[in-house]
């Protein structure tokens, strides 16, 4: 079977259609359909990853039309890795979602699973495609589905958060579209590889410069790089937990992937770091993003909101690493796509478990949580260590590469920001642990010894298992990070 690249994207799309239709007949049917669709997609992604590692880049022509006329899926090591991350997180989140969807939005479970599958389709398409305009359309599919999802969440604030997200999302996507328009005017092509072949002769052109800046601003808005992050915290914290768990780790990370793809494959290192002179400014912007994200997280009183600001901070890591302009920095940025996706997923799984039991996750509500939900908290602590960057968890290794890269390039401010933000994260998480250790106030009998031990009330088993597995995978990813760098990232960077 040579059609695996197409199957990765097409199966969730067809499953979305079937799940939507099945929900009319019987609401309960849509969940197994979604599960099967994503399982097939995950299997295909795994096959593609193995094939790419053993025999190099796959060029898949949609419907047999050759590029630059037809749309091409070009899957190299970077794509294949991101595809695998996206589809496995989507699959495992679906397993954990069954119970929380049942609790939160059970009257619209059918539509939830349909939109969920469409969202995953969009993300996978963005990652797989080798065509600039196709990328725009798929970004919009992803965004449209997430607007709808955010509105499914909190009944009071969800729609307003979603509408603000629409306004900013449209501006971002339109800027990207405009950039592609300028690129097309000058090169006459939309295929990434083809554009990359034509561009070297046009390095002095101001049209290309405009195109580059417009594309980058569009993508930055979509990935919520500080100061374009204002939509993210509200949109993510008011969406249903089952959706927050997938959108938080994946949406921003896939946008970082798009940025790296545009930088490396389409415009090229030579253009960005030699012809243009803006890399320093972008690294400063990333430095600000890291610091601002960490400081704003410190000011939050709600756990979900706090974590969304940590995402803003982590985006700064990846953008800075990619723009430092050396191999170490880029390695760190790509490795951090994997690690941050896993870490954010694990954090939000833990939050999902808490929401399932507590309903709200204001920091005050978390008192005594270590006694009440020991397994969830164990996962949460492990993940927090990874975010802070304690070895042997995976968060340490990508930060290490980023800091080494920053030193090699002389970007000491960025290295300093990384260290400071790690410290702030440490403060942040230990503040949460401290609150969670407090026992709930006793009723004032004065016989503290006689209060019965706190009853363990854990989240459902399916959510706990997924949460535990993902938290453990942080250590596994940390231990194998050398293998990942040597088999995937370095060969990818050498080919460019």
């Amino acid at each position, binding site marked *: 079977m040579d059609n695996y690249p197409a199957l990765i994207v097409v199966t969730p799309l067809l499953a979305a259609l079937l799940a939507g239709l099945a929900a009319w007949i019987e609401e309960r049917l849509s969940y197994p359909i979604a599960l099967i669709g994503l399982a097939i997609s995950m299997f295909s992604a795994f096959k593609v990853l193995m094939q790419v590692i053993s025999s190099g880049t796959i060029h898949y022509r949609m419907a047999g039309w050759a590029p630059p006329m037809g749309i091409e899926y070009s899957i190299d090591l970077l794509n294949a890795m991101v595809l695998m991350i996206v589809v496995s997180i989507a699959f495992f989140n679906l397993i954990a979602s069954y119970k929380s969807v049942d609790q939160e939005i059970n009257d619209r479970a059918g539509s939830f699973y349909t939109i969920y599958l469409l969202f995953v389709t969009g993300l996978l398409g963005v990652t797989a495609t080798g065509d600039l*305009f196709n990328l*725009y*359309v798929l970004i*919009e599919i992803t965004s*449209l589905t997430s*607007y*709808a999802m955010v*509105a499914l969440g909190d*009944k*009071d*604030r969800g*729609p*307003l958060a*979603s*509408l603000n997200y*629409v*306004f900013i999302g*449209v*501006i971002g996507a*339109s800027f990207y*579209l*405009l950039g592609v*328009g300028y690129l*097309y*005017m000058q090169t006459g092509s939309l295929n990434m590889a083809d554009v990359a072949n034509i561009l070297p002769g046009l390095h002095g052109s101001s049209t290309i410069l405009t195109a580059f800046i417009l594309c980058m601003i569009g993508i930055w808005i979509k990935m919520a790089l500080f100061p374009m992050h204002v939509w993210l915290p509200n949109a993510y914290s008011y969406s249903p937990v089952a959706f927050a768990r997938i959108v938080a780790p994946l949406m921003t990370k896939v946008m970082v992937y798009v940025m790296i793809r545009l930088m490396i494959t389409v415009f090229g290192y030579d253009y960005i770091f030699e012809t243009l002179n803006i890399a320093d400014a972008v690294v400063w912007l990333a430095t600000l993003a890291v610091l601002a994200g960490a400081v704003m997280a410190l000011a939050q009183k709600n756990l979900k909101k706090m974590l969304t600001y940590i995402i803003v901070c982590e985006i700064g890591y990846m953008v800075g690493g990619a723009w430092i302009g050396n191999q170490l920095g880029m390695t760190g940025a790509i490795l951090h796509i994997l690690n941050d996706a896993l870490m954010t997923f694990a954090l939000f799984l833990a939050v999902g478990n808490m929401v399932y039991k507590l309903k709200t996750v204001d920091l005050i509500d978390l008192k005594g949580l270590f006694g009440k939900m020991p397994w969830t908290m164990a996962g949460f602590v492990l993940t927090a260590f990874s975010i802070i960057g304690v070895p042997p968890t995976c968060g340490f290794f990508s930060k290490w590469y980023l800091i080494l890269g920053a030193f090699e390039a002389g970007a000491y401010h960025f290295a300093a920001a990384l260290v400071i933000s790690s410290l702030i994260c440490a403060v942040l998480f230990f503040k949460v642990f401290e609150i969670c250790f407090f026992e709930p106030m006793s009723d004032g009998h004065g016989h503290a010894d006689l209060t019965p031990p706190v009853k363990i009330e854990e989240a459902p088993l399916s959510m706990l298992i997924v949460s535990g597995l993902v938290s453990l995978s942080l250590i596994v990813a940390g231990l194998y990070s050398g293998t990942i760098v040597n088999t995937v990232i370095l060969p990818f960077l050498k080919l460019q």
Partner: protein
Amino acid sequence: MEDLLALIVAKYNYWLYVILMMIGLYAMIAKNNLIKKLVGMNIFQTAIILFYISIGYKQDATIPIIQNAHGGQDAHNAVIHAADYINPLPHVLMLTAIVVSVATFGVAMALAVRIYQRYQTLEEDELRMRLSEE
């Protein structure tokens, strides 16, 4: 001054799209009413569609349909000059972009309805007041 005027006249399509885009962006940022913001968003998207349409245009060119392509006497030996036909590709792309913008507008309108049902207002300052009261 004359240089500038010549520049504006020669590339008036770009000027028009930039002006439209700025009108849309202004409405999205400065207007207080959510529906007015939505209209601004639509103007913003339409400006980009017009930009794409205009880059496909060529002087003295016609629609990209080849006469007698499917039969007729000299269908196969007719010489085709690309310069005689406008570029259809940007137009085709915009069909997709129009679909996207219609879908976005629809979703946004539905959200506005939900907000109105909940708060009985679409003015942003009133919404902010209501939210801070709660």
